[in-house]
């Protein structure tokens, strides 16, 4: 599904990603962990098409297409979804209107006719229930005045509505208390399927108690320096990142 090969990216001339290699197959959940500043969020941003980052080398192929050639909206229409670490507040645009536009723009991209208001509302209500999203939030301006938990839940709700093939969760656990974390994780899990894949970017192990990964990768200084099964996350939780850093420095 997703094939990342020697991906290099920089911002303002500073190289952040220094050759990432990653294969993601349908149905898989990959966790990307690593200390602060290792490039985790950069990887998520580059995959979603954030334009501040300059890709300086390597390739990303998604479902047979050169992802790096696509605009952010085209990537979304192809089935990539980024749950933001810091969801943006957009005054004056209601969540429901925003999502309706998004759904119909993606349908247009795929050559499908737009959903009518009734179809759309029915679908949205079902998805809102799935992530315990309060109806009243849908009518409010997008994320405006939402609590941290509400914003993150809104991300997962949007994901449920857009049904991406590949979801990238960027530090979705940051700023969440344990109850909010559980609700968000349940939402993500309910969307798991053999056709869909998920990349979970996180600093801490605790989210992975709820969203259990198939693979754990440790990102450090712009490279994946270690990969392993889900138990690797527990080891990191216990021992911290220093032993990984030491390993990397030793190899030079």
């Amino acid at each position: 599904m997703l094939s990342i090969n020697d991906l290099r990216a920089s911002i303002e001339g500073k190289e952040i990603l220094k050759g990432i290699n990653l294969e993601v197959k349908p149905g898989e959940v990959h966790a990307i962990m690593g200390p602060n500043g290792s490039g985790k969020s950069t990887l998520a941003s580059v995959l979603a098409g954030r334009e501040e980052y300059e890709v300086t080398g390597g390739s990303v192929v998604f479902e047979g297409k050169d992802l790096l050639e696509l605009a952010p909206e085209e990537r979304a229409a192809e089935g990539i979804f980024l749950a933001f670490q810091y969801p943006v507040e957009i005054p004056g645009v209601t969540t429901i209107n925003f999502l309706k536009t998004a759904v119909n723009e993606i349908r247009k991209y795929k050559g499908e006719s737009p959903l009518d208001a009734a179809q759309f509302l029915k679908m949205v209500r079902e998805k809102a229930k799935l992530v315990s999203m309060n109806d009243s939030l849908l009518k409010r301006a997008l994320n405006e005045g939402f609590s941290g938990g509400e914003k993150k839940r809104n991300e997962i709700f949007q994901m449920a509505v857009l049904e991406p093939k590949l979801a990238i969760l960027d530090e979705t656990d940051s700023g969440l208390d344990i109850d909010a974390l559980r609700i968000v994780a349940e939402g993500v899990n309910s969307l798991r399927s053999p056709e869909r894949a998920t990349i979970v970017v996180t600093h801490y192990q605790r989210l992975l108690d709820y969203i259990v990964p198939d693979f754990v990768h440790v990102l450090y200084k712009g490279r994946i320096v270690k990969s392993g099964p889900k138990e690797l996350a527990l080891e990191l939780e216990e021992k911290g990142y220093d032993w990984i850093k030491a390993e990397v420095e030793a190899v030079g």
Partner: protein
Amino acid sequence: MSTETIDLKTRLITDFHAREAVMNGEASSEFHQKKRAGLARFEQLGFPTIKHEEWKYSNVRDLISVSYDFNAESSIGLAELEDLKVPAQQANILYFVNGRYNAELSTIISPVEKITISSLADAYKNDPARVASYFNELTKDADDAFTALNTAFTQDGVFVHIPDNQSVEHPIILRFVSDAREKNVGSQPRNIISVGKNSHVKIAEAFRTLGEQRSFTNAVTEINVAQEANVQYYKVQNESENAYHIGTTQVRMADRSHFYAGTVTLNGKFTRNNLNIVLDGEHCDAHMYGLYFPDGSQHVDNHTVADHQKPNSESNELYKGILRDKSKGVFNGKIFVRPDAQKTNAFQSCKNIVLSPDASMNTKPQLEIFADDVKCSHGTTTGQIDEEALFYMRSRGISQPEAMSLLMFAFCADVVSQIKIDSVREYLENVITQKLASK
């Protein structure tokens, strides 16, 4: 080079005297005396240049470089107005074509035995003393050449008189149409609106142009808001690429009254709006909302004044602008807090999005505070579209142009949602949507 040998000022003054010469007895009336005083004031002030502090960023040289027919006839009918009109609803709708009331096109549905809604010319015919007593009362001290010019040449406009304790159910919509299909036309409407104690009314002025020739509108509206009255007043300008508009709305508020103004400029070559509110009462509140959306080489200038004269009142102001292409915007917001006006709350905000490197915005808040126990704040921002918001929307599959449109529509919505006449608000939403889609 200009081949005009007589400038507009001289031409207007000559025209005034020529008309006066054939007035017979009417020339001695109170009404005409006020007009004559207006002419004298205009003669003394002359058209402003950019050396004038109030006109620093708005040059009227182009406006006054040609002549206009201020008495142009028009055969305009409803058919031609169909695509110009604000969508209909149950409302009093008064048409003014080239500045003159057109009874055939107009509909007045509010009970005339209770409230007066008529053309100024008709009102004057019926009761000259009453109209003359209101005329130019609020604007008599105005230090503005265009207001003085309007006073000198007042012929028509609307006259609304609402007695005490009336809630006017149907809004009053004034549609000013410049028929510039054949030649340069000018009009100088004067609207006089008096709202009695504890009365409520919604009024909108909508300006449109037909045709490609130049139009020059020099409009003045005087609104007197009595105690506890509630007035919603909107001005909508959607004129042509050759339309020049100078307008002054002068408001006086009494104790415990409420006044809401919405000024929306969507199109027009050169627009200058003066909105002057005198809070001449205690516990009253004035609200000013403005939106301008120029493109091409359009120029929009909003000057506002909130003049707090008595204690315990509040003014609240929000102006927003989107500027494209080579357009220019000007915002000058004055807040006066007079020595007696303790416990005043006055807030002002002006926010702009400049979408082109060739567009520009000049903002100038001006606070003059002579009382010590007051709360005043002002802020202006001028920036581009929020890139983070744009990326967020695109990451959900919304194309860049569509995302821009949504963001800009949302930016406008703060102001548009304040318009409480449904048909006017819907009209604005439609025009803004079309305009956003046009680039």
